């Protein structure tokens, strides 16, 4: 009897261990695959063309810069919208809203997160972009900003969901301590609760930004996909072409093994590196915050 229990314990632990390691294996395999398909681009396409500013793949112009800048502009805009809105919503739900409001709001926000991005894209084409054009007096409503608005909508539920959990996990005694010292509700939120939940809130923000930069369908439908190098402030209100939309639009018809094919994978590597960078930055901030918190507590 005891032996079989022992065995079962062993097998289950091993299975759990395996599923833990599988994440590493998958990421490593994907990276290997990307490198294998993407690095030949450096040999097949001219380097001068890769660092050029023209993306016109059917005639071998593979300037990646406009696409990288397009992705960054759209994501930057989305972060500008989603971070304050997301944290604000999370704070309201966790700290301010009465219980019954919270019980309605949270599932609703999560429902928003489950909206298929194609549906958001339709909304963007038919509603958001015409109104943006009229409202901001732009030549066209299919701009990076339109993409940012919708991506903001996609990122908000992620940020809210994670940040609200983190705020909820802050012990009630922290808040009671602050109130006892005479702090107002806003002072408590800003000086005590938010800093205490900092690492969770930051994780939410990073996950949200990660979703925004990786989102494809909505962006492809509403940003106009013009490969213009975006470096001015006005670029946010001009059409842009993101890396994800480029891969999605062109991968279907590219000849296997051609320079264009490899360049598309190279773009995949760049996307991978950018999200790696975002994650590393996030965890280093979280790590530093934790160390400081530990110093204070000890």
């Amino acid at each position, binding site marked *: 009897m005891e032996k079989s229990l022992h065995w079962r314990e062993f097998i289950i632990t091993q299975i759990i261990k395996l599923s833990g390691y599988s994440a590493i294996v998958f990421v490593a395999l994907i990276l290997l695959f990307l490198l294998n398909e993407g690095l030949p681009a450096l040999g097949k396409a001219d380097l001068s063309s890769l660092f050029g*500013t*023209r*993306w*016109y*793949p*059917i*005639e071998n112009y593979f300037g990646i810069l*406009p696409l990288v800048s397009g992705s960054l502009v759209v994501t930057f805009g989305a972060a500008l919208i989603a971070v304050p809105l997301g944290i604000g919503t999370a704070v309201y739900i966790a700290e301010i809203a009465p219980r019954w409001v919270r019980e309605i709001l949270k599932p609703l926000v999560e429902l928003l997160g489950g909206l298929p991005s194609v549906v958001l894209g339709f909304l963007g*084409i*038919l509603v958001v*972009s*015409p109104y943006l*054009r009229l409202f901001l007096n732009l*030549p*066209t*409503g*299919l701009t990076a900003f339109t993409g940012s608005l919708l991506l903001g909508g996609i990122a908000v539920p992620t940020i809210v969901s994670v940040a609200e959990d983190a705020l909820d996990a802050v012990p009630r005694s922290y808040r009671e301590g602050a109130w006892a010292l005479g702090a107002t509700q806003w002072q408590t939120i800003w000086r005590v609760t938010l800093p205490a939940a900092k690492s969770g809130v930051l994780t939410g923000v990073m996950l949200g930004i990660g979703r925004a930069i990786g989102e494809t369908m909505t962006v*492809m*439908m509403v940003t*106009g*996909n*013009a*490969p*213009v*190098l975006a470096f001015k402030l006005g670029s946010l209100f*001009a*059409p842009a*072409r993101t890396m994800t939309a480029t891969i999605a*639009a*062109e991968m*279907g*018809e*590219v*000849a296997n093994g051609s320079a264009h094919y490899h360049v598309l994978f190279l773009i995949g590597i760049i996307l991978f590196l950018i999200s790696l960078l975002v994650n590393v930055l996030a965890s280093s901030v979280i790590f530093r915050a934790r160390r400081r918190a530990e110093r204070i507590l000890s």
Partner: protein
Amino acid sequence: MKSIRRAFIFFLTFALLACSSADASAPPAQTIENKGSDTLVNLALAWAEKYQEERPDTRISVTGGGTGTGIAALINGSADLASASRKISAEELEEAQIKGVAPLEHIVARDAIAVIVNPNNPVSQLTLRQLADIYSGKIVNWNEVGGEDRPIVKLSRETNSGTHLYFLETVLRLGDKNNKTFFSPDTLLLPSSEGIVAETRQNPNAIGYDGLGYVPSDLKVIAVAKEEGDAYVLPSIATVNDQTYPIARDLFMYTNGEPTGNLQAYLEWILSPEAQALVAELGFVPIK
């Protein structure tokens, strides 16, 4: 009780097996895989539907994806019939020869590219040269071509669309192989015809192009002249067939070698008056 249930499951399994084997013994349907040009996909579907009504023993499955996709599928053997809105390219032909495939061209219909603007745009005619200058970014305001003082927003299909390539060669480069004019980088590349139509419908600054068959009647079609001084011609079945409309082209189906059997019968049927009537119905131009 248990044994009854088991017997019942047994019976069910047998019944199912019997059903599936009955299906298999029906006369085997001949399947034609037709893949390729998005320009042609609606027409190919209409043909397939009509043909299958008349010949229930033939099954035709039609998918789009673009000319490049269709020809690639023909080359690697996953399609019997590739619809194409352009002639097969030299590289594709080379790849086909390596794989031992001999693509054979059949002209099945004609198509005209219509240039469309918002109905509120007063501009109603342009020369090919003016269109080229608009799309390459030399003309940026509608008042340079006799319109209002508005910026021009250029809409185009994605670079992998046959329509895009055709427009580039015929309009931007005016049919000159050595001309290296490009679409201006601020040209909006939209992934679908629907995107172009939706944007043109609501934006008075927009100019777009698409197959004549896809232009809804509430948009304004521009009359085009080949050279300044020539007559401005609106695209229509008559003007495409008498070759006075300058942005028109042939549409193709490619087979691997001389078609035989069902495939041959289908291609012959496509050239019949009945099938060509469908061509006109869908806004394309019949070849006869």
